């Protein structure tokens, strides 16, 4: 093939292609002529009279049940009046007209304005929610007078148990602008086009993906004002999953009742598998407040209350563990070959590091006399643990505490768990730019000082004493495959059998004669192993004496209590903190007993 031949072919074919395109352009122009000029009237009426609009269908949110199928979060049918704000020329006139028919309160208007601020594009905004049957009938007969108001049937979240268990259950709220940004980043925005609400706390937040479901959509014909004429095609939504929790609602209610008006936290779990049976943070609040957007007044009340009802004390409350830390300090000692029985000390009622240092007092004036490690746990002997902590040193002690899960997240399937704190010299240097004192080591041994724990950490650590060879993650969703896998990844702590035996004996003796919670042991039909604790809320100045009666309530000591039962084959473990409750055994102990009685006395169980 020579060059000229190629050039010849090319030119021919170039022309051919050019003609093809020109013909196509001509066809396009004909087509536009046909549509725009010949068919103009037809398409203009199509555009003006009826058009098809895609309307999203929101999926019904999954329900939440307790372990015995009692419903905790339900959906209730609600009739709302909604408007598209852009179509309303004068809102106040509309409201006055509507008020003749249906009472519109200022709170309704406030709510409307609040929702309007965070509105998604194109959505309608409710002006009146939860119509009564009477109001519904009135509106339906008069609806022709209000072409711009749309009557909507929606499923509204309803929490039948009200304030019970609000902290783990959480709540849903209207989707905010911030939520929208997050959803967009996660690529989920499309699925939320028809959704107004999103989980904001607790299980409602944690399992949002499962509960929400998948949005559907339908094509509807709308007229020029945007009013739907008829539905043409339906692509139904996929409902959210129903979720069962490990919570035993009956137990939860008993626990909340036992707190009476006191503040604090309680968590009960099955120590063999980590299922959370009761999860109390007091005081509580009503999650229903949030469903339609919480009013400013209610929010301020909740947010600014000194009792902090919004705080989830179980995973976010940080407390000094007090004497409830002693069993774990004991494990640290024994595992490092310190204070192995029959080693005993003679407790004079105080401890000092060296002759010229200050004296560290035992809670019992005059001391406990001859004390070995088992008795030290049973009577909560401070002197014993001051010395043990000093001899162990912080690094070894912290290693064991970390083994029990202190200072780290337990991995519970609830949002924003706090870490707690096990302090050391390096931490103090960074935080306060000061050196660590030996005295701080001593008081760490009795759970004072910098150490901070969450109730769930205490409950997990207690479970690990009950079953040192089981690995588990505390969790609230029943039968979660994912959690089972993570649990298998965390190895059980390795402690010698002998150590566990001694520590268990000490904790069992707490409810025996001479123990700090002996009075509880006398009334139970099963054997309870426990440890009491009292945590100082504020430091006494030198020479001051703690006089409970004289102190204002918020400065009184916290009462703590950890326990598991039956001692021989534990079925339930518990951690309780009663804020400003005074002595652990006498305030928190009876609550634990009530729970255990319910759970372990067969007639109460299902």
């Amino acid at each position, binding site marked *: 093939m020579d060059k000229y031949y190629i050039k010849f072919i090319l030119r021919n*074919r170039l022309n051919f*292609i050019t003609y093809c395109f020109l013909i196509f352009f001509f066809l396009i122009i004909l087509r536009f002529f046909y549509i725009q*000029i010949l068919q103009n009237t037809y398409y203009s009426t199509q555009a003006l009279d009826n058009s098809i609009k895609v309307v999203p269908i929101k999926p019904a949110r999954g329900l939440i049940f307790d372990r015995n199928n009692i419903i905790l979060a339900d959906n209730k049918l609600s009739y709302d009046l909604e408007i598209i704000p852009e179509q309303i020329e004068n809102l106040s006139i509309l409201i006055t007209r509507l008020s003749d028919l249906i009472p519109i309160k200022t709170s309704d208007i406030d709510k409307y304005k609040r929702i309007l601020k965070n509105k998604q594009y194109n959505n309608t905004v409710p002006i009146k929610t939860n119509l009564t049957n009477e109001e519904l009938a009135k509106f339906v007969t008069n609806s022709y007078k209000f072409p711009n108001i749309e009557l909507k049937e929606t499923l509204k979240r309803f929490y039948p148990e009200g304030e019970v268990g609000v902290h783990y259950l959480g709540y849903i709220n209207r989707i905010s602008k911030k939520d929208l940004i997050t959803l967009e980043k996660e690529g989920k925005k499309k699925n939320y086009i028809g959704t107004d609400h999103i989980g904001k706390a607790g299980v409602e937040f944690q399992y949002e993906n499962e509960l929400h479901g998948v949005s559907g959509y339908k094509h509807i014909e709308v007229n020029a004002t945007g009013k739907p004429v008829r539905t043409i095609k339906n692509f139904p939504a996929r409902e959210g999953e129903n979720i069962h929790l490990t919570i035993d609602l009956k137990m939860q209610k008993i626990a909340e009742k036992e707190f009476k008006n006191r503040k604090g936290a309680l968590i009960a779990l099955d120590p063999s598998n980590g299922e959370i049976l009761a999860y109390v943070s007091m005081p509580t609040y009503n999650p229903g407040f949030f469903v339609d957007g919480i009013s400013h007044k209610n929010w301020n009340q909740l947010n600014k209350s000194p009792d902090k009802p919004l705080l989830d004390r179980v995973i976010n409350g940080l407390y000094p563990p007090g004497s409830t830390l002693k069993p774990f300090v004991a494990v640290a000692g024994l595992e490092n070959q310190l204070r192995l029985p029959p080693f005993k000390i003679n407790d004079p009622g105080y401890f000092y590091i060296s002759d010229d240092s200050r004296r560290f007092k035992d809670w019992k004036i005059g001391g406990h006399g001859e004390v070995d490690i088992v008795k030290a746990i049973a009577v909560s002997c401070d002197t014993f643990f001051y010395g043990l902590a000093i001899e162990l040193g912080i690094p070894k002690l912290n290693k064991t505490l970390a083994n029990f899960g202190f200072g780290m997240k337990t991995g519970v399937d609830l949002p924003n768990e706090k870490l707690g704190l096990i302090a050391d010299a390096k931490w103090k240097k960074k935080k306060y730019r000061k050196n660590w004192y030996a005295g701080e080591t001593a008081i760490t041994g009795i759970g004072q000082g910098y150490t901070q724990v969450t109730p769930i950490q205490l409950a997990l650590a207690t479970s690990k004493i009950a079953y040192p060879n089981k690995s588990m993650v505390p969790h609230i969703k029943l039968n979660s495959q994912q959690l089972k896998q993570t649990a298998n990844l965390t190895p059980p702590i390795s402690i010698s059998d002998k150590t566990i035996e001694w520590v268990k004996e000490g904790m069992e003796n707490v409810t025996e004669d001479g123990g700090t919670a002996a009075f509880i042991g006398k009334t139970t039909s099963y054997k309870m192993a426990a440890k009491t604790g009292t945590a100082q809320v504020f430091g006494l100045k030198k020479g001051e004496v703690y006089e409970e009666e004289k102190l204002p309530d918020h400065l009184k000591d916290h009462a703590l209590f950890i326990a598991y039962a039956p001692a021989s084959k534990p079925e339930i473990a518990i951690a309780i903190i009663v804020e400003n409750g005074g002595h652990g055994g006498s305030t928190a102990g009876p609550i634990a007993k009530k729970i255990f009685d319910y759970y372990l006395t067969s007639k109460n169980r299902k």
Partner: protein
Amino acid sequence: MNLTTIQNYIFQKLDRPLFGAITLILTIGLINLISANHQDVSNSLSHTINIFIGIVFLFMICNSQTRNILVFAPWAYSLTLFLLIYVNLYGIESHGAQRWINLGIFNLQPSEILKITLPLMLAWFYQKCTFNINYKVHFVAGLLIFLPLYLVAIQPDLGTSLLILFGGLTVIFLAGLPTRFIIISFFGLLISSPFIWNTLLNYQKERILSLIDPLSDPYGAGYQSIQSIIAVGHGGIFGRGWLNGEQTSLQFLPETATDFVFSVFSEEFGFFGVLSVITIYVFIFYRCMWMATKMQDTFSRLLVAGLTISLFISLTVNIGMISGLLPVVGVPLPFFSYGGSSMVVSLTSIGIIMNLYSNKSLIAN
């Protein structure tokens, strides 16, 4: 250097009629985009920036050495292949397809770059074999098309891959593929089409079916197509006026800034507006094809024709789509649609065409 020499230097190689027509189209497109974006100014602003960057590219390419373009061809092609592999692995997903690479300040769409680098590679390749073009050469050229085509198709982006296929095949056709072969492969394709049909994704099938009879499923797959036709038809002779398109403002029209940007234009400026814009496009097309016939060597001829055809396949498919002549495929309208990659690529293509044309006698020697 004084101002006039700088001006001379910059504008010397520019083809003024072509550049004038393109400036006109860009201006109309920008005005239209303000309406298509529901008067949201930020998008129109970034469209202006895209145009500016594109024009800078156009000038730079137009004034560079033609030899550089030739030498650059295989490297550009390899780089595009690499980007296409990269986008399939780490690209940004949107509307169920991975098409973009996030480069921080903007998202790059490698399949758009291919609209330049594939014709470039093919032209370079045929130039290398210019004295001995036979079946083997055509076969290798086919492979050069197939490789990137496959990578685009699996994103999945059927629309763009079909455009690339057509663009590439036209270059082979222009390079002198024997007529017998064309006829044989046409029947081959016809026979294998049921098998190809089975490999299509559901939404792609629906779109093609909806074209054959849009009214069979007017509210499913045909929704976009019908809404677009209503908008176009609503425009009438003189249009609804700028910013007055009801179909656009009531948001019945999908993707008003990108794929369906011309529906907005048709509704607001009517048949006369459409006629004017298409006339300008036809002028640009005709001018470019005329330039191709004036070229003296294989490389320039094939490249100019290849680039032009690439651009105008996009254009005809887009306009065919919004007027209901062709199925709904995600293809932008060159010089009109919102989208940085497409704008820069289109203007760069024009830059290359102008460069080759102004140097045509140079290359021949």
